[in-house]
């Protein structure tokens, strides 16, 4: 086991006016760990994800990331340029809606290649080769490489978004409802693919979802949020099979058995 967490969150709070969105959130995420954040809409989980991924400055508290050269560093204490470099190289961000994470008017291949070029790749043949390889890994037919993603189904768009994120070999990926809005059969395929890629690449992941089946399959540990506060944490199977907090019990018992 490595000795240092990849991400350290200390007493993070964020308010919208007087209304708390996220209060006093503290946790460490270790390399290779997948953490699920669950809770109903309005519980503050998306606000938390935005704060963690350098897109929303918290009102108080710190988000520290283990940078390659300086160890644990406050991401909001970095310069804008340093932060942008991190987001392009070390971090990935998978949006619920693939249209927010893709460029719809350029080809699938270019969507993947663009992130490679942002980290310095210049050789066209290599970039295209890498794009072909990643299309294969996310189960998109290589022949679609020159098509625009607007011509793809929702499930294919989501898989393309994942390829675009993973091509630069990030160390941590933030996911916001990655299976939201997809058909159940498409969801299962995407989840299985994500599970496989995350374990192959040893990624650290923070995945926000309201779907307990998603975290059961993907996450090592869980954080349950309600009204901006973390009400329960633990191993995923522990929290789902033996929930302690009244809210978690309600959440788990409300899932319909198919």
């Amino acid at each position, binding site marked *: 086991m490595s000795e240092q967490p990849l991400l350290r969150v200390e007493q993070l709070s964020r308010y919208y006016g007087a209304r708390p969105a996220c209060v006093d959130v503290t946790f460490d995420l270790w390399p290779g*760990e997948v953490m699920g954040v669950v809770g109903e809409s309005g519980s503050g989980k998306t606000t938390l994800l935005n704060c963690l991924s350098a897109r929303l400055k918290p009102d108080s508290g710190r988000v520290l990331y283990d940078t390659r050269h300086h160890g644990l560093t406050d991401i909001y204490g970095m310069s804008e340029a340093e932060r942008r470099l991190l987001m392009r190289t070390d971090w990935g961000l998978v949006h619920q809606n693939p249209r927010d994470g893709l460029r719809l008017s350029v080809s699938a291949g270019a969507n993947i290649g663009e992130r490679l070029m942002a980290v310095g790749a210049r050789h066209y043949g290599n970039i295209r080769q890498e794009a072909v390889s990643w299309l294969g890994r996310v189960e998109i037919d290589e022949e679609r490489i020159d098509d625009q993603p607007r011509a793809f189904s929702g499930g294919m768009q989501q898989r393309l978004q994942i390829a675009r994120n993973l091509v630069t070999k990030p160390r941590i990926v933030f996911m916001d409802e990655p299976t939201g809005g997809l058909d159940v059969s498409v969801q299962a395929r995407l989840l*299985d693919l994500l599970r496989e890629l995350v374990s192959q690449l040893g990624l650290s992941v923070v995945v926000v979802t309201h779907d307990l089946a998603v975290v059961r*399959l993907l996450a*090592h540990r869980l954080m349950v949020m309600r009204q901006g506060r973390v009400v329960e944490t633990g*191993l995923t199977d522990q929290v789902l*099979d033996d929930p302690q907090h009244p809210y978690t019990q309600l959440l788990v018992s409300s899932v319909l058995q198919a």
Partner: protein
Amino acid sequence: MNDIAIEVGGLAKQFRLHTQGDVAIEVFRNLDFQVRFGECVALHGPSGCGKSTLLRALYANYTVGAGSIRVRHCGAWVDMANAEPRAVLSVRRHSMGYVSQFLRVIPRVPALEIVAEPLRLHGIDAAWARERASAMLARLNVPERLWNLAPATFSGGEQQRVNIARGFIAEMPILLLDEPTAALDAANRAIVADLILERKAAGTAIVGIFHDAEIREQVCDRMFEIEPFKVAA
């Protein structure tokens, strides 16, 4: 003592059902329990006395209210009742296997991969892991035509044998078995009994729930009686 695999002390467990009138169900209190390497212990007691709860607590699938569950892990002790999630996961990956009663099926993942996964988590090459998984499935009489299918459509007995194959393949030093033969016919029960005896001879510490008296007598060295909880007068 060096040959102790699991040492449980002062364990207490109650369920508090917040959504059902805040009922508290006390399962056990002040439970002490030890298992050595190379022995097989059957948890015993009437239905509802907490056998499965104890087994799940040993695996840290259930939390406990008080006490400790120290298990041997890579030459040190880890307290499953109080360890960090990543420490518990490390124990599960390297030191402690658990064969649940029912297989949790993952869409699209074929039986062969389900069985091979614990080996792959040990860093074993995928092709070799698959070969070992094939041998294990063959030994448990799972028909070869099923190996590359996801087990969602398998019979109860076939699913249970996939689950057993997965639980035994990585040869963990500690094994927890929750009614491993419940859905099996006599021939397959005998194969599972052989597997258990082999692991025991290799020094594995085994804790299980066996309703089938015949297999229990065949594989277990002793029984651990769980007294039904009585409210103190």
